[in-house]
């Protein structure tokens, strides 16, 4: 498992951006990170469910922002001075999707040692099936490699459903 994971994303592991949510440290490859924004004014989208934080205007482009905390069953703490929006560019089966993700605090860009990366235990974690690619170690903390593409497709309705062939 470790080997398979590492071979798929060894380059990515050298360059990960770490952010914090609900007391957990999460990482995504900097390769997919477009920018980090101070939280702009969010326009709520009614009826869109708990994972949608709303829409933002990034220099004339309207982007959706997702709040991943309900997916991980984390408390939705109000925005504070550390809150940021990570703008990620995801390569999905249907094409590229640019998505904002709320981060309670953005830490640093770090390199992970592939040796430390382990499979997610099937029980005893808060992570839903498939949301995490693996867990690594950085300094004395666990870092969770989240699979944003998969989350987007499974939880955010990025894949078109039958009734929305638009």
């Amino acid at each position, binding site marked *: 498992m470790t080997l398979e994971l590492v071979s798929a994303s060894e380059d990515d592991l050298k360059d990960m951006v770490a952010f914090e949510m609900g007391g957990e440290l999460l990482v995504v490859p900097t390769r997919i990170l477009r920018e980090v924004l101070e939280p702009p*004014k969010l*326009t*709520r*989208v*009614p*009826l*869109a469910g708990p994972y*949608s934080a*709303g*829409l*933002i*205007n990034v220099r*004339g*482009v*309207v*982007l*959706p922002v*997702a709040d991943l905390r309900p997916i991980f069953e984390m408390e939705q703490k109000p925005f504070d001075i550390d809150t940021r929006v990570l703008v990620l560019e995801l390569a999905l089966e*249907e094409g590229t*999707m*640019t*998505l904002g993700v709320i981060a309670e605090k953005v830490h640093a860009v770090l390199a992970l040692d592939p040796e430390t990366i382990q499979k997610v235990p099937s029980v005893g974690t808060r992570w839903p099936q498939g949301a995490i690619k693996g867990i690594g170690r950085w300094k004395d903390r666990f870092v969770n490699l989240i699979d944003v593409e998969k989350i*987007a497709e499974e939880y*955010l*309705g*990025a*894949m*078109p*459903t039958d*009734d*929305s*062939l*638009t």
Partner: protein
Amino acid sequence: MIDEETQEIFRQETEALIESLQECLLQLNSTPEDMDLVTQVFRDLHTLKGTGAMFGFARLAEFIHDFEAAFEQVRSGNAVVTPDLIAVSLKAYDLIVALLEGEDPAAEKDAELKAALSAATSGDAAPAAAEAEVVEEAAAEAKGEIEGWKLRYKLPPEFMEIGGNPVAILEELLEIGGPDTKVEAIVDGLPALAELKPNELHTAWELLLPADADEEEIRDVFMFHEDSMELELTAIRAAAPAAVEVAEAEVTVEEAPAAETAKAEAPKADTKKPAAKKSGSANVQMRVSAERLDDIMDRVGELVIAEARLSDLAQKLNDPNLTEVVEDIRRLALGLRDTTMAIRLTPLSSITGRFQRLAHDLAGKTGKDFDFVIEGEETELDKTVIEKLSDPLVHILRNAVDHGLEDNDTRVAAGKPARGTVRLKASYSGADVLISVQDDGKGLDPDFILGRAIDRGLVSADANLSRGEIFQLLMAPGFSTAEQVTDLSGRGVGTDVVKSTVEALRGSVEIESELGAGSSFTLRLPLTLAIIDGLLLQVGEDRYTVPLAAVEGIVEEPEAIRDGSDPTTTVELREKLISIMRLREIFETGGERAEFPKVVLVRTGDQQIGLAVDRIIGSYQTVIKQLSPMHSRLNVFSGATILGDGDVALIVDVAQLVKAQGLDQDGKEQAA
């Protein structure tokens, strides 16, 4: 071999030619004596051949060569246009299209069609051709003065870099001139070896062609390069050129109706004038990729938004100097927006050729006689809309002929003219475009449709539906009234696709029909997809936009419904019972209630609905931004827009919201 990219460029280049070719052929069917059309067919074929050869489509070029030869016979008066010739030509056209699309039809087909073409144009020329022969003779007489052609040309230096092949040009010229042609390369223009770049062309050529070489053919070789090259073509004459001109003038006087032919045949004194251009209109056309246009549209959209922010700011600062500049910028931005939108508009005529062809084929297959009439082809629509409309319209047309029109005997028995009429009509209606397909066939039977829908479980047996609603059932998925599945009209799948395609374009389909008298399908579509006039509404803390075109009125919220908190309710307004949607409740918005809330009356389909809101902010130029799949799956919002202050507001899709609230059926029953 031809790579995909080349093929794509080639396909784009030839699209218009193909469309024009088909249209001319079909028109020739009804007016076989129109020599202008014959000439146009000939030109289209010739250009296609040239382009094909240039892009390396050898088989295509070879086939078209023979096709062209057949029309050369007609053009020169040795043959006439017959229904046979048109039928074969249309088949030949199909083969060309197949070859262009990269298909690989059996090689025998080429030969077969070539034989059919030459058979259709051999035979003795009909009397109509005799006139033309006189012209030909006269022209030949004038030509007799010429002893040969001297051609001197220099292609642009970047000729090879843009994919040109000088050798192919020479070969083509040699084919025109035959074995007696003399060729000399002129290398005066060659730079010193140190400066010579191998991919630049510096050689010029001088050719002496025999007298029987056709001037137009020679010029056509250079058709695609004439703007950037040097070309000198002079006739080597024995007698004084003045005599030729007199001869030409005489021909023109004698044969007034054929004057154009005579002119085309007679040698021209002005050698600078490119031959190919005289057929085209004076308008200079440019081909631009749709992607670039989309880019421009996006930028213009942003400009309009930025301008709105600037206006807001200027209003706050209240500085007359600033206000003046802002007004200028506003005028310019709006002008730019209108021009940009106009660029994207394409007339419906760009796709009507294929409908004419379809009607022609349908008449053949069904044996039904009918006239196909197109009205309002000049009506313009956004290019993306036009492209997406083609398939739905083909489907509706097929249905009209296959299921709508009765066969000739039935028509006569019903006291109708044996010949039916199918009408494709386009017109403007406010900010919308209406495109309808009407037939004078047997019409739709509402009872039959309702019965079928109940059988299929699409509606409950006790449903109380209006006529319009029953016709709408035709477009429900899985509904088909065709008693027999035919080759033409598929298997009852498709009409629902018509509806979904049109709705995806923010349009709607209306069906009207009178039993025994005919039916009409009308597509109502917005002029453009990019910018709409919107009405901005305040609902609690949020702002939403609805398309202004749908808004029919604004009233004070009646006291009677002010206290309720159900998402929907009904109220009597202007003596009519109207369903009200409380947006505050539906969108679960917080914030203060306004002291004087309003109800916006909007039209969706054939019903009026009220939207209860807190405040009307005003009308805005709304640049529509598509939502990501994360939000578009909700359907209730058709997009988002950026407001003057930089905030994002959602655009409410009223029809979908009505559906989501279950008011689309019940609401009407109450109102009826």
